[in-house]
């Protein structure tokens, strides 16, 4: 079942189209990533899904309901963690949780939530004295306190140190394991690659790719590099004629071969045929990061994928 369905979503501010005919659907129980640089239309899209903005064109269905018309009903089923949304300075963690719990008919157990989010020690701490990670975790807790079926999390790890970021990621996985569908907005490729079951890559208000992170990397076919010191001489030409190889360089005693597709297999099989051992072999595998750069750098590829 599709928990979220977005069809042809378009949103303009004045004459500027910030979201342009965006379509995607999110299945029940998945972590769906919305990825893209700042200004790509990610936040406007999720704010429209949360019912905070009215689309200029297109339709959105969340749990079969319209986020604008059925907003009162949806608000109890969708938990939202917004960017740049704070709490009063002097409100404590416990007070915020008690307050938000009062908004829902059947809130989740606060103690368990506090434990799961590692906020026990901070329960009596005022909001302004919380660390960035604690604020972020509290914000997630408030999005989850009403036992939502869908959680929308916008840039949840921005401004967190690597340790706090990893803890937050574990938390998101545990949310999904409870059966909550998660819509995750991020501009961190690593985050999307680690967490998301599927990813929609946004650029300039459009979805330029939509697939699993691994498939996006494979499709975008970004450059990969092998770096090694051959045990016996091998000429540049021998390497350069191999399929998928783009260029061959020498750095010190090392050979660097850059290419796409099956470049790694092609080079290693040539070396093994020739009985050459590749010392100090390092392969720089493509990540979603590279895929993303490849996608946005080449409009042709982007169009093919869209």
């Amino acid at each position, binding site marked *: 079942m599709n928990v979220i369905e977005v069809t042809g979503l378009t949103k303009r501010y004045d004459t500027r189209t910030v979201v342009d005919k965006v379509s995607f659907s999110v299945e029940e129980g998945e972590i769906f990533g919305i990825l893209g640089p700042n200004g790509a239309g990610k936040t406007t899209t999720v704010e429209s899904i*949360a*019912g*905070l903005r009215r689309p200029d064109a297109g339709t959105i269905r969340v749990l079969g309901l319209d986020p604008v018309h059925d907003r*009162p009903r949806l*608000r*109890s089923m*969708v*938990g*939202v963690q*917004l960017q*740049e*949304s*704070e*709490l*009063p300075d*002097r*409100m404590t963690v416990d*007070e915020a949780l*008690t*307050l*938000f719990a*009062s*908004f*829902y008919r059947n809130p989740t157990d606060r103690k368990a939530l506090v434990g799961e989010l590692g906020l026990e020690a901070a329960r009596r701490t005022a909001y302004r004295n919380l660390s960035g990670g604690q604020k972020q975790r509290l914000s997630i807790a*408030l999005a989850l306190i*009403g036992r939502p079926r869908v959680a929308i999390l916008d840039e949840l790890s921005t401004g967190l140190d690597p340790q706090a970021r990893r803890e937050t990621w574990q938390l998101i996985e545990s949310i999904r394991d409870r059966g909550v569908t998660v819509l995750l907005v991020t501009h961190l490729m690593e985050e999307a690659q680690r967490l998301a079951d599927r990813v929609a890559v946004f650029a300039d208000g459009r979805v330029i790719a939509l697939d699993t992170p691994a498939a996006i990397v494979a499709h975008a076919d970004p450059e990969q590099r092998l770096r090694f010191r051959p045990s016996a001489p091998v000429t540049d030409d021998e390497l350069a004629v191999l399929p998928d190889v783009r260029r061959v360089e020498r750095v010190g005693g090392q050979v660097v071969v850059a290419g796409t597709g099956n470049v790694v297999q092609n080079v290693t099989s040539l070396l093994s045929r020739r009985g050459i051992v590749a010392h100090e072999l390092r392969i720089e595998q493509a990540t979603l990061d590279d895929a993303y750069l490849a996608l946005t750098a080449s409009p042709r590829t982007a169009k093919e994928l869209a």
Partner: protein
Amino acid sequence: MNAFRALVVVEAKLLFRDPVTWLAAVVLPSVVLVLFGGVFAGGPNPDLGGRRWIDLFVPSLVVITIGTLGIQTLPGRLATYREKGVLRRLGTTPVHPAGVLAAQLALYAAVSIVALVLLITVAHVGYDVPLPLDPVGYVAAYLLGMGALFAVGLLIAAVAPSARTATAIAIPLFFAVMFLGGVYMPRVLLPEIVQRIGDVTPPGVQGLQDAWLGTAPQIGPLAVLALITVGVGALATRLFRWE
């Protein structure tokens, strides 16, 4: 716990953690009374229709309370909540952000009544000032005066783009309200024209004073206050932005 009650409780806690505000709203009027009581009390003064200075001064002191809460605290809080995205965040929950506004109005109304009871008690016990002699008229004048001033506070919150601007608008307005309400200088010492203006500007101190001293408040100024409450309140509601 029901959401409205939870909002009032948490707002009350936040107010209590801000002693400057609640001391000014609740305690300051009575402190001013004690400080000036000895100086002003005097005896019956034929120039004041046989009243004492203090009898005329006490009704003005409630202006400190409702001015602090309505013109400074209310718009300051709401503008801060908007600036920090608190209202936006509430908008994603089943509670409408108007709930926080309603909770604040209810809380400040309750706090102002605590301050009023304290003031009446200190004035009565310490300085023999009579209890409001026309209680019904007093309650009417008080509610309309408070309503009008709170409506003005809401309007500030509605038009101020930031908490800083809200404060910048509130401070001179607060001093004007205090001046016209006779807090800095008993109203009888103000020029006639200033007194007449003060009759109708929120919170309408003349009506409060009349009712306290046993004359029914005049209907004209009360009607003006009612108009301000409804008109300014409606305008504020129209202009208010949640984010």
